[in-house]
């Protein structure tokens, strides 16, 4: 048989056969047959809450920032400096356990490149100086005025990244005018400085740039006997020098350079029954530990994990808010987890390295969950628990030993690395976290698993 004749049917056959074989297995899969024999069972997912052991922890937060040094920092802190604040005043929040929180604000100013001629030539007697502060935070009674006092710092203060427990020496006598007051509800407040201060510092005020900054150490601002804590924007704080009045006035503003808030608490009692207290500023938070070798986690070592979340609720309904008392809700939280020895690095489980030395990882949170809760999303919580299960199965410790939760008041931002490591703004806000109950329930990990 000639090859040409054979080739007429052979390819058709081959294609036909291949077509039969390659008919994709299609199915109209139904529940028919599930009960045949011993039956097809299992595979039903279930969701369970696993509560951790919770204890109190206190870590003084960073409340100091230097604007210039922030320029070379990661985006998180550079962005944060625009929202940074310093606090002045004291508040006795009616929430049990919060005590009286007293804050002292510190602010330093940058030198100007030049000074208007009118100000250079004016005599000290013809000059006035005032602090101009934009309010962006109020915790406490909003009615009435606050007495404020401004003191000279006696030496250069290293405010950058200073923690709230730090303090800096100030002169014993105030440099603000006697009886200086501010109204906390005003968006802009001014605190006038004494004429004698101007006279004593006229040389410094007329210097520029680093000469000014070397000679001027900054102010400490206190509000004795106040009933509220007021927050001032660090980025818009300024020291204004003025001569003349009305349309003939000449002014020069020295922009804020460094700010810091010293925070301390007195008279703290116990939180309400059934709650644990987190409190901003004083750094009071919660430390959570899950017992992987106890029930129910010990039964899930091999169970496929479909979804996981870590959830720390804020029971806002439990906070008493008297009339005229202002208490904003914190706009965020921060969860820092401590790695076990030999555990995978932070990025492996979706977290961000905070400190290699301290084995600390920051867990990204769902921004929209605040202020009602601190919520670790599935793409972080699931690998954390999954790897922990695997490690425990191999007789190792879980990925993280401790999860520390703190208030981190900040703008609502997207979940990304920069936002995750960003520290919270100085605050004095309390949060009550239930320790039991059903709604909103205690801190917990919610795991959806499909049992093997």
């Amino acid at each position, binding site marked *: *048989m000639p*090859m040409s*004749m*054979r080739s007429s*049917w*052979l390819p058709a*056959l*081959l294609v*036909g*056969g*291949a077509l*039969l*074989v*390659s*008919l*994709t*297995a*299609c*199915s*109209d*899969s*139904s*529940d*028919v*047959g*599930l*009960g*045949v*024999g*011993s039956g*097809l069972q*299992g*595979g*039903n*997912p*279930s*969701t369970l*809450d696993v509560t951790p052991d919770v204890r109190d922890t206190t870590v003084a937060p960073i409340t100091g920032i230097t604007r210039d040094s922030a320029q070379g920092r990661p985006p998180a802190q550079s962005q944060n400096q625009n929202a940074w604040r310093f606090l002045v005043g004291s508040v006795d929040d009616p929430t049990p356990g919060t005590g009286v929180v007293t804050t002292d604000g510190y602010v330093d100013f940058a030198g100007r490149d030049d000074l208007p001629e009118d100000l250079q030539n004016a005599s000290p007697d013809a000059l006035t100086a005032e602090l101009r502060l934009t309010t962006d935070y109020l915790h406490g009674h909003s009615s009435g005025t606050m007495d404020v006092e401004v003191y000279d710092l006696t030496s250069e203060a290293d405010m950058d990244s200073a923690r709230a427990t730090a303090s800096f020496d100030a002169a014993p006598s105030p440099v603000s005018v006697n009886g200086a007051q501010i109204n906390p509800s005003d968006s802009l407040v001014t605190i006038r400085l004494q004429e004698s201060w101007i006279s004593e510092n006229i040389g410094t005020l007329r210097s520029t740039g680093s000469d000014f900054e070397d000679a001027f150490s900054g102010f400490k601002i206190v509000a004795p006997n106040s009933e509220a804590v007021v927050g001032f924007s660090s980025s818009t704080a300024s020291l204004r020098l003025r001569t003349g009045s009305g349309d003939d006035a000449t002014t020069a503003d020295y922009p804020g350079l460094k700010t810091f808030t010293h925070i301390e608490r007195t008279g703290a009692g116990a939180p309400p029954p059934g709650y644990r207290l987190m409190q901003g500023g004083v750094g009071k938070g919660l430390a959570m530990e899950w017992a992987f070798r106890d029930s129910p986690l010990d039964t899930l070592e*091999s*169970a*496929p*994990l*479909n*979804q996981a*979340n870590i*959830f720390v*609720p804020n029971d806002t309904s439990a906070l008493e808010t008297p009339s005229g008392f202002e208490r904003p809700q914190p706009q965020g939280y921060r969860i820092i987890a401590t790695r076990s020895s030999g555990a995978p690095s932070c990025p492996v489980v979706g977290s961000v390295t905070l400190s290699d030395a301290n084995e600390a990882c920051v867990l990204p949170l769902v921004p929209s969950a605040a202020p009602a*809760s601190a*919520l670790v999303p*599935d793409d972080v919580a*699931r690998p954390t628990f999954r790897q922990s299960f695997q490690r425990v199965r191999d007789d190792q410790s879980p990925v993280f030993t401790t999860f520390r939760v703190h208030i981190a008041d900040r703008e609502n931002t997207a979940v990304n690395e920069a936002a995750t490591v960003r520290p919270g703004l100085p605050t004095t806000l309390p949060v009550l976290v239930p320790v039991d109950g059903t*709604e*909103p*329930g205690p801190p*917990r990990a*919610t795991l*959806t698993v*499909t*049992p*093997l």
Partner: protein
Amino acid sequence: MPGFSRLLVLGTCAAVILLAAPSPAQAQSNGEGTIYSRFGMGSLLEFSSSQSDAMGGGGYALRSLNYNPDANPALWSDQVFTRLSGSAAYRSTSVEDGQGNSGRLSSGNVQALQFNFPLYERSLGVGISFQPYSRSNYSATRTGQESIGPRQDAEARYETTFSGSGGLHRLRGGLGYRVNDMLSVGATADLLFGTLERRRRTTWAAPQLRNTIVSDGVQLSGLTSTLGGHLALADVFAEDDAFSIGASVTLPANLSGEQYRTLDEDLARDTLSTERGDVTLPWKGRLGLSYQPNARWTVVLDGAFDPWSTFSSDFSTGASETVPSRFPAGGPGTLADRWRLSTGAEVVPAGDDQLAGYFAQAAYRFGGYVERMYVRPDQETTLYEFALTAGISLPTSLSGTRIDLNTTAGTRGTTTNSLVRDRFFGVSLHVNFGERWFQRRKLR
């Protein structure tokens, strides 16, 4: 045809078929789709030749120059052509239960790849074949919904799909020897190997939830052997008739392997546990009769018996979550002795007339079988399979080469006792390529 060209054609044919051949990996996505393939070693697949396939599936005594039946190696002795055969099939299975619920599965698969050649024409022949031995392919789905999230205030819908895949394959090689005009004998060495896997896949409608796949599999391999005999008698009931008796016995096969349980799939597959073990497959007995009263008609009657009640397995029984679930599913108690009776006939209207019309030279076949299935899922109800078969064999201008088109339709199982009834329909295409090869032509 020059030898090289011949080799090229055969090679091309083999390559295309091999591309879709039942390699262990590819075969796992194919199958006939019955929930009963979840039990035992899966659905047992027997294919001897396309001729016997259309005549009820037996043909243990069916001798033909155009085919080299695989079921009885004694039939390999009577070869003239070097032969390469490939078969592909498509099967659709609809299933219903006692409540009237129904589902459907359909797929394509390679039935067999066979290569035979005579060492001595019509005296000593060699056969090599590769074909599926069993196949697991089923799918059943349950749906549900679960509250998710920290507040458990959202309902997420999920599906749990139970499916089976894979199967055992058989690589057979052997010889058939014609002792004399009446008696032929044959023997093969059979390598059985493959992976049977049962999967439970939980998939969520909500994309943020991770799907789960738990697989219980067993990898097995082992050797066995088949011995066959064939007795050919002439002028038994009438002048020029031919009566044959064929029988074969496959020895028990001891398969060793590893059972495993894994989580997830592909590169992310996490092995939870493994366990080594052995299973012993029963012996198989085959007996067939073939009668050719004349050149036009051929009639066959065949029987098979496999004592699957003697099956044994020392794999564990799934004592904990991480241990693979029991193999075989339901335990050896779900297996029962299998028997099969089949009969069929072939008619070639032209008989020996080489000058008759094309369709008169075609072979028309039909048959049927009844089988007591070797699986008994509830350990009580005996299941049967009934089917009718038919086919047409088209001659080609190439002597020794035929193209066969077969079909089958049948039913298996019952809807009582929470069982299901399958109704299946299939078609298959077979290419039987034969040429004289490796033989020195005599000078005339």
